[in-house]
Each structure stands twice: as structure tokens, then as C-alpha cells.
């Protein structure tokens, strides 16, 4: 069986397995799976409002997925997307509330760039430590997540506000809100950000596949020693990769801060988008277009799940379980690949 087909089959089989196990869980806990899945389906496609909400949810998922995938292609595991997203969110809102009478053409890009920059800085630190001291980025990015959480909380409370739990709304001139989309989707929170996300999908694809820089990044990702031997700047590429990855993650935060919510608030815990981004990247095979499909799936599941308690009385956490299981299955691709090979061999005989 061709490699390419297997690469597509593994995520598909994983999703199917996840849904099957989800069915079993519903059965065992006394719920009606048919009602459950139809509620889920309705929650995604039942009303135009839900479709709008799904695409809104997909927007940060794409960017978070790109962030993980981009780092991964350069051989780095960015678990810190969550933290980079939070600082990006805060930075975007900061710029959004700081100016009141800037024209939109300046204010909005400025806020978006601030988010990307904040995320990039948050990615730069683990990148630098990896390049300079060979410290494993997984641990550093985990630690950076918590530092981001506490630091942004502190800034929101003590700098952006006077000991309040959330900031003011951002100025209209910095907002991604789209009255057009809202009217189109029965007043969902769908905003212009989806175009930012799709632009980034193109950027990632073009950068990695078409440019010499992308050649270097991929080369370093596969084999640092050979890249160094070939005269590439390995450390520079590691840092650059984390910076770009962090910038994608920061943009995901901007989507929330400038689009969905319009403010930043104190957080008791993580948004979860960053960790879901790992699932998105993994399922999408760490390629740009795959990330879009995976984000659509997970965004749909997440938004559709909210309809499950309403229509079928099933806790929406069922979807979180299914997503976690899908990750397990994709990650265990070695096993699935092995089974596919056994299967297709038998078919031939």
C-alpha cells in the first residue's frame, strides 16, 4: 500500500475508532448514541448560527494547529502554544484598548501584529534555550505556559485595569467583528479572523515548501547534524521556527481577543485551544492543508457538543473524550500502519 494512502488512512481510521469508542461509552453509561450523535450533528449543521459558531471556533484552531505543526516540521515540539496564545490575546487587547482614535487600517493591523509579536517572544525563549543550551523545548514550553498564565493575569489586574477581572472592550477600530458575517449567520460571533487564519495556512505552505528558508527548516527538522554539515545555521533555524510557531499561536490569541470576545479576562486555567492545537496538528499530519481539515473537524465537534446536553441530555465532555482518544489512535499510528499492512497483505493472498 502506498505511503501516501496510509498517511491519509491513519487519521481517518483514528477518527472512526474514536467515534466507535464514543458510542460504546454512551451505551455503557446508559445514553442513546443515536440521539447523541444526531444532537451533535444538529449542533454543527442544524442552524446557520451553529455553522457560524463552528467556523469561529475553527479560526483559532487552525492557527494553534499551524503553530504546533510548523514547529514539528522543524523537529520541535511546541507544547507552549497555550501560553503563546494567552500572551498574544493580552497583547492584542492591550493595543486594542490603548488607542481610541486611530484609523482602523492602522489600529487593527497594529493589534494583530502585537499579538503575533507577543507570541513570537514567548516562543523565542524556549527556542533560544534549545539552541544555546540544548534544553528540551517540551519542558520549557510547559513552564512558559504557566508563567504566561500568571503574568497575564497579573498584568490584566494591575496594569490594564485597577484590580478588575477583565479589561474594557477594545476600541471599534481594533475589532475583527463582522456585522456582515453576523447578519449572515443569525448573529453568531463569526468574525473576519478566518481570513487571517487562511492567509497563515498559505504562508506556512509557501514558506516550508517553496522557499530556501523552508528547505533549511525542514532539513534541520529531519537531521540537525546533516544540516550543520551542509553549512546551514542550525541554531538560527531552531530559534526562527519557534518564533514563527509562537507568532501563529499569538495570532490565535488575537482571534479570541479581537474577534470572539473583544476583551481579555483573568483566567483560572488554560483556554484549552493550545492543547487542542496539538490534536489538530497531529490529525492534520503536520501539513498546512491537513491542519485546515482537522481544525474543521475538531471545531465542529467542540461547537456541536454544546448541543448534546440540550437535545440528548448527554454531557458535552463526551466530545473531549473522543478527541483524546483520536489523539491516542493517531499517535499509535505505528500500530494502525502495521494492521493496514497485515490487512492488505492478506487481501493480496
Amino acid at each position, binding site marked *: 500500500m502506498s505511503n501516501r494512502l496510509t498517511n491519509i488512512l491513519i487519521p481517518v481510521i483514528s477518527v472512526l475508532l474514536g467515534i466507535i469508542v464514543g458510542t460504546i461509552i454512551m451505551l455503557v453509561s446508559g445514553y442513546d448514541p443515536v440521539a447523541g450523535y444526531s444532537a451533535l450533528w444538529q449542533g454543527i449543521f442544524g442552524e446557520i448560527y451553529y455553522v457560524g459558531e463552528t467556523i469561529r471556533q475553527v479560526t483559532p484552531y487552525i492557527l494553534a494547529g499551524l503553530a504546533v505543526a510548523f514547529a514539528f516540521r522543524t523537529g520541535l515540539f511546541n507544547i507552549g502554544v497555550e501560553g503563546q496564545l494567552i500572551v498574544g490575546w493580552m497583547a492584542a487587547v492591550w493595543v486594542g484598548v490603548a488607542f481610541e482614535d486611530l484609523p482602523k487600517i492602522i489600529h487593527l493591523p497594529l493589534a494583530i501584529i502585537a499579538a503575533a509579536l507577543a507570541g513570537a517572544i514567548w516562543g523565542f525563549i524556549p527556542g533560544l534555550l534549545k539552541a544555546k543550551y540544548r534544553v528540551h523545548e517540551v519542558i520549557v514550553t510547559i513552564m512558559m505556559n504557566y508563567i504566561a498564565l500568571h503574568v497575564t493575569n497579573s498584568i490584566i489586574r494591575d496594569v490594564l485595569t485597577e484590580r478588575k477581572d477583565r479589561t474594557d472592550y477594545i476600541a471599534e477600530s481594533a475589532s475583527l467583528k463582522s456585522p456582515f458575517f453576523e447578519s449572515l449567520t443569525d448573529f453568531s460571533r463569526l468574525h473576519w479572523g478566518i481570513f487571517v487564519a487562511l492567509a497563515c495556512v498559505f504562508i506556512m505552505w509557501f514558506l516550508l515548501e517553496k522557499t530556501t*528558508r523552508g*528547505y533549511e527548516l525542514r532539513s534541520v527538522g*529531519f*537531521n540537525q547534524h546533516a544540516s550543520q*554539515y551542509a*553549512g546551514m545555521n542550525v541554531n538560527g533555524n531552531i530559534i526562527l521556527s519557534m518564533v514563527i510557531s509562537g507568532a501563529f499561536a499569538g495570532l490565535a490569541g488575537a482571534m479570541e481577543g479581537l474577534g470572539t470576545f473583544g476583551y481579555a479576562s483573568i483566567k483560572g486555567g488554560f483556554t484549552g485551544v493550545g492543547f487542542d492545537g496539538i490534536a489538530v496538528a497531529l490529525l492534520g499530519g503536520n501539513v498546512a492543508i491537513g491542519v485546515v481539515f482537522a481544525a474543521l473537524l475538531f471545531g465542529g465537534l467542540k461547537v456541536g457538543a454544546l448541543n448534546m446536553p440540550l437535545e440528548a441530555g448527554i454531557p458535552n465532555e463526551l466530545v473531549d473524550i473522543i478527541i483524546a482518544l483520536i489523539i491516542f489512535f493517531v499517535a499509535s499510528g505505528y500500530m494502525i500502519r502495521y494492521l493496514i499492512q497485515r490487512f492488505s497483505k492478506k487481501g493480496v493472498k
Partner: protein
Amino acid sequence: MDYVIEMLNIRKEFPGIVANDNITLQLKQGEIHALLGENGAGKSTLMNVLFGLYQPEQGEIRVKGKKVNITNPNIANDLGIGMVHQHFMLVDTFTVTENIILGREPKSGASVDIKKAEKDILDISEKYGLKVDPSAKISDISVGMQQRVEILKTLYRGADILIFDEPTAVLTPQEIKELIQIMKTLIKEGKSIILITHKLKEIMEVCDNVTVIRKGKGIGTVKVSETNPNHLASLMVGREVTFKTDKTEASPEGNVLEIRDLNVKDNRNVPVVKGLNLEVRAGEILGIAGVDGNGQTELIEAITGLHKAESGSIKLNGKEIANMKPRKIYENGVGHIPQDRHKHGLVLDFPIGENMVLQTYYQKPYSKKGILNYKKIYDQARKLISEFDVRTPSEFTLARALSGGNQQKAIIGREIDRDPDLLIAAQPTRGLDVGAIEFIHKRLIEQRDNGKAVLLLSFELDEIMNVSDRIAVIYEGQIVAIVDPKETTEQELGLLMAGSKGKGTGEDTNV
């Protein structure tokens, strides 16, 4: 029959290749039996089958006449089979004692009884003349002592059949002498030994019988007393081997590479190249002979900019290149066939085509203003693939999928095609079959005949003697002698490599 081990008609497959095909090996009590074959012929696979690390698809194993089924190393241990691995199986952070007792720990209460273990180990080490320090950490002891620990591991487990897998590859000539002495002592104490090697000299010196395998197939067993090195070599390779490479007299002129007082430290910050001087001239192949670990790797990495030079000068065509970035050095006319082709030479997960521009992808015509031109890249790849006879299904095949010989041809093609004034070839033929070796030697000589300089590093003395026009012997980070391959002998080189100043060669070390 007093065979202690019989491996009969063994077959072992790996996905895509048959590593062992119908091989038979019979070991007599009290003999040293050589297992001879080229790199990649399947020697290690066969021994890993015997040791229980791999399961054979066919064939049977008998130990002292009894049919056995060795499914894991524990069973091999229980049968008295011990293996001294080529790549030492030692835990760096553990002590000598901890490594030896691992898996068979003596206990007092719930604890490991380290005192008793150390005493037992000292007893065994005295009996067989294997000097070790039981409480030293593995990371702190010499390679020779690490090998003694490996041997002790098997003896501690009561092994009386020992397998030595290429034991001399990492040793100095002195350490080799000691090892041979140890092996003889072991035989005297009633042990039997299988020696895996591709070095004919060692076989002639210590072995009683030799079993030859070629490309995974068993060729047969001969008595050492009834054979000679030439015969063994032809059995191993499958045809007459001349040992001599055809080439004309070199006509060198002018220095391409000039190294003066070079000092380099290794990764642990220990000086390993110490005030080294060397010259390579246009139109000659200079071979560097030496035991592994005498600064060769660091020397080459310093020339190519991969490793920092602490002090000294490296001049290429008169231009200082010390501590330049690797890319600048390549641009100045250096080609580099690296020692470890998987680690350094190729990005295995790239298509072989993209590997062909690994150093030049940023230059025209392969890219323009940062945008890659895949058409030009693959044009170049197709050209090199046909010129250098790289056997690959297509230029889009991942480099990983190619055989070692074809991977190496791809690298050599890529390096020679850039037409470097200085070509550095570090162990260019390691692990390759004879056909590929001859091809590569021819290309190196061609490069020389075109008036380029070639710096050849090899741990195979044969290769050094046959291909080089001059031989520089490196010892402890210095060039201790420059000799003419036509006038020297392996014995003399061996002595020089071991650090004893041989007879004067008429040339100063500072040439």
C-alpha cells in the same frame, strides 16, 4: 563429536532483506573459531541469533549436542553463552560493578550486596588477568578497560562460550596484543571462543578454524593452518582480490591545504589536536593513518568549519579558512565526504534529489531570491544519479530507501560535482561491498588525476596503503610521521600509529 555450539542452516530475514541464508557454524570445545565476512555480510546478525536477540526463521541451534531454542539473552546466558559486543553494552552512569551484576545481582536482605559483588568480580578478574576498578564509573574509564568489563560481564554469568564481535576495531595495537593474550588465557581455562572479524591478520594469528560468510550466505569452514590470507580474502569477497589499486604515479605540485600549529579541543573540552602540521598538495591523495580517537575526527571537522579551532592556521590555496563558517569553506572550494553518512551526509527523510543540493540549494540556478526551483534541482539530481550510477527507483525516492553503497555514491557525486580543490574523504568505503569500494577508489584517484587535492581518512590500513600517494600518521593529535606507501610496511605503520617513533623516514614531522 565434541562441538559445543552448532548452528545449522540458519536463516534470518529482515523486512526486505535476507540477512542470513542457510549458514552453518560449528564450534569445537577449546578452540578460537573465526567468523569471517565483509561488513554487512551478516556476521552480527548470526551472532545475535545465537545470543537470543533475534529469532531465526529456519535452522536449528545445538549446544553441547542438545537442540535448544534461544528466545532471549537469559536463555543464552543459562546455556553458558556470553557476548562481548562491538558497541559496548554498558550503562555510562553506572559503576563497573553495577554493570557487571545487572540482572544477576547478589542480595543481602532486599538490598544489592555491592561488597560481595566487588569481591567476586576481583576474584574473576585476577583469574583471567582482566584488570578493572570495580567502583569506577564507566564514563571515567578507558576504552580498553570498558572492553574488559564487557568480558567480565560474560564470565560473571559463568559463560564458557564467548562471542567477540569485532573486538579490535576500537583498540590500539598494544591493547590488541593484550586482548589476544586474554583470549589465549581464556582458552587455557577451558573456554571456547567465536571471533567475529574481517581482519585476516588476526585470524591467522589466533584462530584454529574459520567460517566464511558472504552476502548472508554460508561459504564454508576451513582450517587456518591450511589456508592463507589471499585464499581467505577471495572466499570472503567471492573472487580474486588483488589488494592493489591501479593508478599512475602522482605528479603533485603546490600546496592546496596548509595546516600550521593547529589546536582543537573535543566536545568535552579536552585538547585532541595538539599543534598539528600538515600539507596536502594539488594532484595527490594524502592518507591519514591512525587508531580511532587520535584527533582525526576533530581535525577534519576543524578544516570543514564544523568544529572550532582553538589556535593555529588552516590555509586553503593560501587563504586563511580557520573558523570560517562551513558554508564559506565550501564556497572556497572544499568538498567533504563525511565519516557517518547517515548522521552527516544525508537528510534521510528528504528525497534523494533534494539531497543532491544540500550545500547549494541557495545558489542559482537551484533557487532565485529565496524561492526554490524544483525543476533545476531535479535536473541536477538526474544528472548525478546517472553519472555516478546511483541505483534508485527515482529521484523522488527518499534517501532512506537506498542501499548504503548507493547513498555513498550519491554523496560522492554531490561532492565531486562541485569540483572542489580539496576533497576530504573520511572513511568513504566503510560498510560497503567490494564493488562499491572499487568504484569509490577510482573516483578519488580520478579527482587526483584532475589536479585536485584529496585528503583521505581511513581506519583500514589496506585502503590507506593502496590509495594514498603519501601517508601521514596521526598519533595523539599530532602528525608523527609522513611515509611513502611504496616504501613502508604495515608493521612500521602499526608501530608509528602506536606512538613509537619508527625508523626515520627522511622526512621531518613538520613537513
